[in-house]
């Protein structure tokens, strides 16, 4: 390196002569990214398990296609079960990636450089996973095109007054914007790393980087466009889960017909998304040796967010019960009593334990700085959130207005395998993503390192001592 204040080199480049000492050797962050692609046994073991789950789910689904939806436990009156639960769960997981990343961007948080990329990838992959389940739930997936607004031989159009139609538009918009947001954030990194890699990855990076060169005018364009994108992503993320909640809340079914459902879903989505992010980041940190970039204090910050959202969720649960009892509707009150005392009560109380009590451990700094403890809590919250979705989807249908139609629901093994297949599919795509693309933002890491190392605004210099 040069001395302080000196340039590294001044080169006179005449026509046709290329400076010979370029490019420079890889820097620490680049080396870490390059090393992360040389995966160890942990990565391959995870990938094999994920693919195995995907195959299991795919096989079970193929059985369902051949035999029919009779192999599931779905029957009147519980026509929405584990598939819709898994759909809501994954849309929830998708929620916090783009949302948190965009908020961290506006807050100029250094946390974003480390966790933003994988959180955004988690969003895109979770929507791609969650979006499969309404189609699986149809039983006749080849009729999915009925959801699309297109002229057809039925001389019917999509019913735009249906929340299910809103879902199609909301989720399609969200996945498009989230994918573009992820891609846009990767552009500078792809351009930088294209010079460091060889083979197919080099070709892929060069094509995907769209020729980005990092000139001051390009950065100016980029810095102008990115906040617009982040500003679009935040309300869109909130709207998507609100729309998913209206799939339920627009019906008059007791337990669903509530104005609190949209914020309830949004809060739950952020909660489950943070838990999933902790699990994925811990896996990346361990599997790819990214300890220098994904640090324990990052988990501590996520732990604080987790406990904050857990308190919000507890408040929402309490509000639901308060409203059911206070407004005096007999059916509404009955369904909530049934939830806490009927055949699904063990699941309900398990959800309370997982989502409202165990996350309180994150109040302790010792727990937040203990990676194993954080991952354990995150897994518990993830399980708790799936069952929380299960409870409100199933119990309201099983115990509605007409006592003569009350009937329980229990998912069959085939259904559970199809749901597990979703987790496998999600994990497979995520593992492939972090294998192929830089999982930590190189440009933002470099910016943080260089501008903290040499702050050029004296007011922003860290205080000595």
């Amino acid at each position: 390196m040069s001395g302080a204040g000196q340039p590294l080199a001044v080169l006179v480049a005449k026509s046709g002569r290329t400076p010979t000492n370029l490019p420079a050797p890889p820097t620490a962050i680049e080396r870490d990214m390059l090393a992360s692609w040389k995966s160890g046994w942990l990565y391959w073991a995870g990938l094999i398990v994920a693919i195995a789950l995907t195959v299991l789910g795919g096989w079970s689904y193929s059985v369902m296609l051949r035999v029919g939806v009779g192999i599931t436990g779905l029957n009147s009156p519980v026509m929405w079960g584990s598939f819709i639960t898994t759909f809501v769960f994954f849309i929830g997981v998708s929620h916090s990636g783009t949302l948190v990343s965009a908020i961290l961007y506006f807050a100029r948080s250094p946390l974003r450089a480390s966790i933003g990329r994988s959180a955004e990838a988690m969003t895109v992959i979770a929507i791609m996973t969650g979006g499969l389940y309404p189609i699986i739930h149809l039983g006749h997936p080849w009729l999915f095109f009925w959801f699309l607004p297109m002229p057809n031989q039925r001389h019917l159009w999509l019913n735009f007054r249906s929340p299910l139609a809103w879902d199609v538009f909301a989720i399609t918009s969200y996945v498009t914007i989230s994918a573009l947001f992820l891609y846009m954030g990767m552009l500078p990194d792809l351009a930088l790393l294209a010079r460091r890699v060889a083979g197919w990855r080099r070709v892929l990076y060069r094509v995907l980087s769209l020729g980005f060169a990092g000139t001051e005018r390009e950065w100016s364009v980029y810095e102008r466009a990115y906040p617009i994108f982040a500003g679009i992503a935040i309300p869109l993320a909130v709207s998507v889960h609100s729309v998913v909640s209206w799939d339920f809340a627009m019906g008059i079914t007791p337990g669903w017909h509530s104005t609190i459902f949209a914020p309830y879903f949004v809060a739950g989505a952020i909660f489950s998304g943070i838990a999933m992010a902790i699990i994925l980041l811990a896996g990346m940190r361990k599997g790819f040796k990214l300890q220098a970039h994904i640090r324990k204090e990052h988990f501590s910050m996520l732990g604080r967010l987790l406990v904050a959202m857990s308190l919000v969720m507890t408040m929402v649960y309490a509000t639901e019960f308060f409203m059911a009892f206070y407004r005096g509707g007999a059916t509404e009150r009955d369904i909530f009593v049934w939830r806490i005392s009927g055949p699904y009560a063990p699941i309900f109380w398990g959800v309370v334990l997982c989502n409202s009590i165990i996350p309180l451990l994150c109040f302790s700094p010792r727990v937040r700085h203990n990676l194993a403890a954080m991952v354990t809590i995150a897994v518990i919250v993830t399980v708790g959130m799936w069952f929380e979705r299960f409870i409100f989807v199933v119990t309201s249908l099983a115990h509605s207005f007409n006592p003569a139609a009350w009937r329980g629901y229990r998912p069959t093994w085939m259904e559970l395998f199809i749901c597990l297949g979703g987790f496998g599919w999600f994990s497979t795509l995520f593992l492939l993503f972090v294998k192929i693309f830089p999982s930590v933002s190189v440009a933002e890491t470099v910016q943080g390192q260089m501008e903290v190392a040499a702050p050029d605004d004296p007011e922003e210099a860290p205080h000595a001592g």
Partner: protein
Amino acid sequence: MRDEVIALFADPGRAEQAIHDVQALGVDGVRLASPAPFRVVHRIHRLGPERLLGWFALGGAVVGFTAGLALQVVTSLAHPMITGGKAVLAWPAFAIICFELTMLGAGATNFAAMAVLAALARRGVSREAKQAVASDRLVVVVPIHGRSVEAVHAIKQALGNAEEMVP
């Protein structure tokens, strides 16, 4: 490729100082390429067409909103079927799809505009200079075509004069 002086810096502040020193010699067209959007980028660059990006996004939003509204209104009127007791033109229900398509239009247009403007913005920087950017170095490019040997020498001095060549 044009004749130019390419200077590599590890420190954004030093690169900015070098740019100011070169500009003080009356040299125009100095360019900077960097691995990240350092603050220096905003200090040396006056906003160009990118100031219109917000307007592009707004245009996309208007198109998205209009498309969403037209799709719902036209098809509902073409097939006036009452479902769920809702009016054929159910404005509260239509607002949701209008909102989603507004956001989609704004985002997609913003991205497309960014890609086009960025492609235009990188014109005038040689391939060699672009390739010299790395995650630990900024590149200052000074065009010297048609300048005298003395002028080039002065530019090199202003840049730091560390003739040849590090790592």
